[in-house]
């Protein structure tokens, strides 16, 4: 047993830290003065001791300069001092060691002995104050390793002693000095390096390209993180300091040949004139052969010039290679030589400079976003449509270009100014190269097959490797052949294979017409993402695009609106899908169809038979998983309007209180047809007053079923029979009185159950003078007693 002396003095010890939380590898021992702090020292276990501040027991602790190693025997320290009791905290570690004082158990860069004797830090924790900053890093930079920022915020993780905006924790992680605003002294402060330019704050040249970070950002406009900003394989520093080429342009002199390639072939990357030279004397110039490298041409190997494809238009910009190269010196392999989003052919046709990127230079009215003719289409959009940017109505048909584009007519065709008869829906086409290479450019082309008298519609990727979503306004009921055409590879792309032909293609309909949707039939599988790389999957393949439209036409010719979606009970409605070549539609009845029926359930047409009662059927047709539908409202008759039968007059017997007419019933509402119902009058009991008091109780018997036929445009449904509506021949003496039959009217469909839908009152009115009025269903006639006329 070893014995040492420990003293407990009241207020004699200055605590350097608050008590840490109870740790697994520690225990607290209470010892009174003149007693012993004693513990069993396990073999090879290293012990450290903390002493509690007698004035703040168990909260403030200080490390005793004790490091003991156990040897399977008690270790004892005699305790002495002026306080009435003392608390000691015993820490231990089982790390194997031969030098417990000189080892660094917590790997924080400080020896165990220095931690307890010099720094008062925990030898078993690399971050004594738990602020995320290691003890040695804090000590190295003058921060307190026992203060997590509670005492002085500058010491904590969020502290910022140098005021550069970068907190201590980030300074630690990014190897910066918390006391220097610009650790590496490159002119960019630490915060900007980390969070703005993503460069290293402790390195003046993050990408090791020979240009310091500051110069890359503020002098050359290069990427301080990318040693080869323009990806021409020449380091930025070499381009600036050795070759005098532009580190941001792969082709400094604009002769289509890469800087590094020119250097490797002893051409001058700063002189465009060497592009027009013919190194191999095959009559094909260097730069022309360069852009056809992938097709076997080489500026330094004589090729067969006679076989050169001058007449082709490989970039689909509307200009042949010969016209592009010989006449305009635009790049025949780039749809948009200057990369401003407007095609070469269009720019040339409009008097723009096809070799000046109008995003960066050129007149303001030639910027891709400018709209010089004020028609609502930008130059970029007019380029895509092939319209004149200086004429709001390119084809002069009286409808401006934007309106034509939106409504689905052709802005370049003076004979096509009206919207399609069924209108259009917006169809979004997403296409382009989504792969990491960002190298390819495509054109999506819609060739009308049905229902669109216009020509081919197309859109072209504005940027290489940038997929885009373009909206076509396509006539409802049309059908198109969809093609994706590869029109070029970025001149910047240096990967293999070149081209890599990666693409994505998808088509989705927009708009809010549930009866219309875009449906793609893609048996060859060209839609979706394709990364076959070595071959163009969509080459020579097509898909069909249907702008499927469900239309309806009532069989009843009245009301005249036969496309109405509100129909009478029992009405038949013919439903048709266009275009007629739609693949395998499947029909279904949804909504609340009641007794409605839909038949047949396959094919492009079907017939809805409305239910016998009010309901809300929805007719749906599903094609390739896409559903189009029409919601119908089926209504019952809700009223009877009686009109005097044409060609008839008023019945009367002179000297008798009498009046009558022949009526024809019409059935409301008048915006549907009830030609499929039958009607009858139900029985009821009459009520008389005054003169007619004695008729009270008179019965109106049940009538017979009468058909309903088409009436006129204003009142489409009328009874197939007339109603004789007359009083009796009433004798004097007369007095005022009325007689009424409140007659229930019933309807049925197809011989089904009867339902009362209205009460039509037969009403006779007698006046004291003998004047008599007969009224029913809103129509009435009157006759004076001595009126001699009668025309029934």
């Amino acid at each position, binding site marked *: 047993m070893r014995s040492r002396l420990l003293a407990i003095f009241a207020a004699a010890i200055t605590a350097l830290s608050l008590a840490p939380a109870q740790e697994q590898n520690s225990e607290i021992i209470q010892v009174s003065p003149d007693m012993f702090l004693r513990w069993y020292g396990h073999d090879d276990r290293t012990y450290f001791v903390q002493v509690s501040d007698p004035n703040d027991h168990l909260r403030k602790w200080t490390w005793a300069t004790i490091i003991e190693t156990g040897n399977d025997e008690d270790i004892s320290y005699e305790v002495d001092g002026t306080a009435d009791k003392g608390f000691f905290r015993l820490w231990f570690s089982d790390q194997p060691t031969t030098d417990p004082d000189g080892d660094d158990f917590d790997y924080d860069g400080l020896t165990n002995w220095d931690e307890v004797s010099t720094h008062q830090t925990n030898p078993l924790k690399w971050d004594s104050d738990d602020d995320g900053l290691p003890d040695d890093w804090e000590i190295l930079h003058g921060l307190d390793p026992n203060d997590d920022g509670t005492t002085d915020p500058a010491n904590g993780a969020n502290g910022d002693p140098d005021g550069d905006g970068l907190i201590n924790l980030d300074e630690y992680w990014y190897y910066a000095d918390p006391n220097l605003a610009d650790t590496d002294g490159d002119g960019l402060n630490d915060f900007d390096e980390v969070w703005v330019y993503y460069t290293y704050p402790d390195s003046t040249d993050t990408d090791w390209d020979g240009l310091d970070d500051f110069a890359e950002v503020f002098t050359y406009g290069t990427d301080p993180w990318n040693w080869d900003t323009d990806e021409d394989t020449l380091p930025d520093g070499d381009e600036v300091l050795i070759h005098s080429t532009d580190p941001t342009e792969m082709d400094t002199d604009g002769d289509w040949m890469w800087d590094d390639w020119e250097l490797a072939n002893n051409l001058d990357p700063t002189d465009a004139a060497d592009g027009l030279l013919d190194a191999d004397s095959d009559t094909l110039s260097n730069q022309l052969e360069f852009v056809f490298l992938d097709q076997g041409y080489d500026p330094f190997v004589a090729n067969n010039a006679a076989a050169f494809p001058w007449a082709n238009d490989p970039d689909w910009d509307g200009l042949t290679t010969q016209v592009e190269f010989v006449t305009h010196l635009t790049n025949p392999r780039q749809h948009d030589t200057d990369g401003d989003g407007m095609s070469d052919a269009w720019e040339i046709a409009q008097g723009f400079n096809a070799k000046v990127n109008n995003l960066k230079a050129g007149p303001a009215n030639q910027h891709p976003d400018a709209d010089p003719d004020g028609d609502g289409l930008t130059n970029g959009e007019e380029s895509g449509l092939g319209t004149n940017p200086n004429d709001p109505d390119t084809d002069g048909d009286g409808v401006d270009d934007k309106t034509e584009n939106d409504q689905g007519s052709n802005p370049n065709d003076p004979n096509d100014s009206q919207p399609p008869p069924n209108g259009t829906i917006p169809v979004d086409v997403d296409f382009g190269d989504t792969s990491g290479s960002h190298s390819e450019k495509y054109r999506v082309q819609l060739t009308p097959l049905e229902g669109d008298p216009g020509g081919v519609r197309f859109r072209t990727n504005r940027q290489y490797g940038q997929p885009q979503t373009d909206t076509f306004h396509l006539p409802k009921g049309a059908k198109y052949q969809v093609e994706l055409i590869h029109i070029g590879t970025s001149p910047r792309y240096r990967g293999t294979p070149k081209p890599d032909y990666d693409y994505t293609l998808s088509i989705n309909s927009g708009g809010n017409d549930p009866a219309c949707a875009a449906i793609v039939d893609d048996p060859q599988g060209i839609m979706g993402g394709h990364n076959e790389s070595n071959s163009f999957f969509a080459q020579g393949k097509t898909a069909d695009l249907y702008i499927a439209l469900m239309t309806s036409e009532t*069989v009843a010719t009245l009301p005249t609106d036969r496309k109405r979606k509100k129909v009478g009970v029992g009405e*038949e409605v*013919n439903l*048709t*899908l*266009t275009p*007629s070549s739609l693949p*395998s539609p499947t029909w279904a009845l949804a909504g609340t169809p009641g007794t409605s*029926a*839909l*038949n*047949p*359930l*396959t*094919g*492009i*047409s*079907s*017939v809805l*038979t409305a239910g016998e009662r009010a309901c809300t059927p929805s007719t749906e047709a599903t094609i390739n998983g896409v559903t189009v539908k029409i919601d119908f409202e089926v209504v019952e008759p809700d009223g009877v309007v009686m009109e005097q039968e044409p060609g008839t007059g008023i019945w009367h*017997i002179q000297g*008798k209180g*009498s009046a*009558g007419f022949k009526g024809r*019933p019409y059935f409301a509402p008048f915006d549907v047809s009830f*030609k*499929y119902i*039958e009607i*009858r*009058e139900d029985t009821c009991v009459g009520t008389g007053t005054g003169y007619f008091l004695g*008729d009270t109780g*008179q*019965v*109106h*018997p049940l*009538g*017979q*079923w*009468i*058909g309903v*036929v088409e009436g006129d445009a204003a009142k489409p449904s009328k*009874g*197939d*029979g*007339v*109603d*004789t*509506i*007359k*009083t*009796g*021949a009433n004798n004097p003496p007369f007095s005022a009185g009325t*007689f009424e*039959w409140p007659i229930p009217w019933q309807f049925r469909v*197809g*011989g*089904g159950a009867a339902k009362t839908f209205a009460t039509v009152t*037969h009403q*006779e009115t007698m006046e004291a003078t003998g004047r008599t009025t007969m009224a029913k269903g809103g129509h009435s006639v009157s006759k004076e007693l001595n009126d001699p006329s009668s025309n029934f």
Partner: protein
Amino acid sequence: MKTRHLQILSFALALSTPVNIASAGDEKKPESSLEKITEFRQSEDDTLLAQQLQFLKKQTGSPSDKAKLICAILVEADKFLVNHERPKGTPALNIAPPGGGRSGVDPASVADPIERAAYQKLIDENKKLAETHRKHAAVAKIRDSAVNLLAVYRVNGLIDEAEVDAAIRQHEISEDQKIALGQLVKAATANKAQHPTDGAAEPEKPKE
């Protein structure tokens, strides 16, 4: 152990559910058949024909078989219309007693027996006229519906012209009437905006 029992019970219940649903779905639906359609020949009850057509519209099954039944309805309806000319005269909802009484009144309330008998006779004649009118119109609508439906079947390629003709020809009607009905369906088919013209290749017949 208790948990295991619960799992077994739950599994057994899950298995039993589809059986119940399946049995619930076995409800017998009204069906159309040639026998029921031809009953109309004797009864001349147009509601029978209307119901058969409605049943057909709601039934699933072979479009070809359904088309044959629709043809049967068409033939029966047309035969009725050929044999029953649309009656002359206009039926009335109400008529008046010949002696000058209130129109629509119950004959029982007519005191004079002679006048009552005359009134009843008028009522009966009107009722007969109205029913003949109604039935003729109803059957005509059924025929039109059948023609429209057959035209849609034709447009959809569910049945071709020869099948329509064959279905019509198997009924005992005059040769002229068979030709006329075939022409009726053909004309209705041609009148539809979206259809293959007669003589053009028929679209493939999908299964309904």
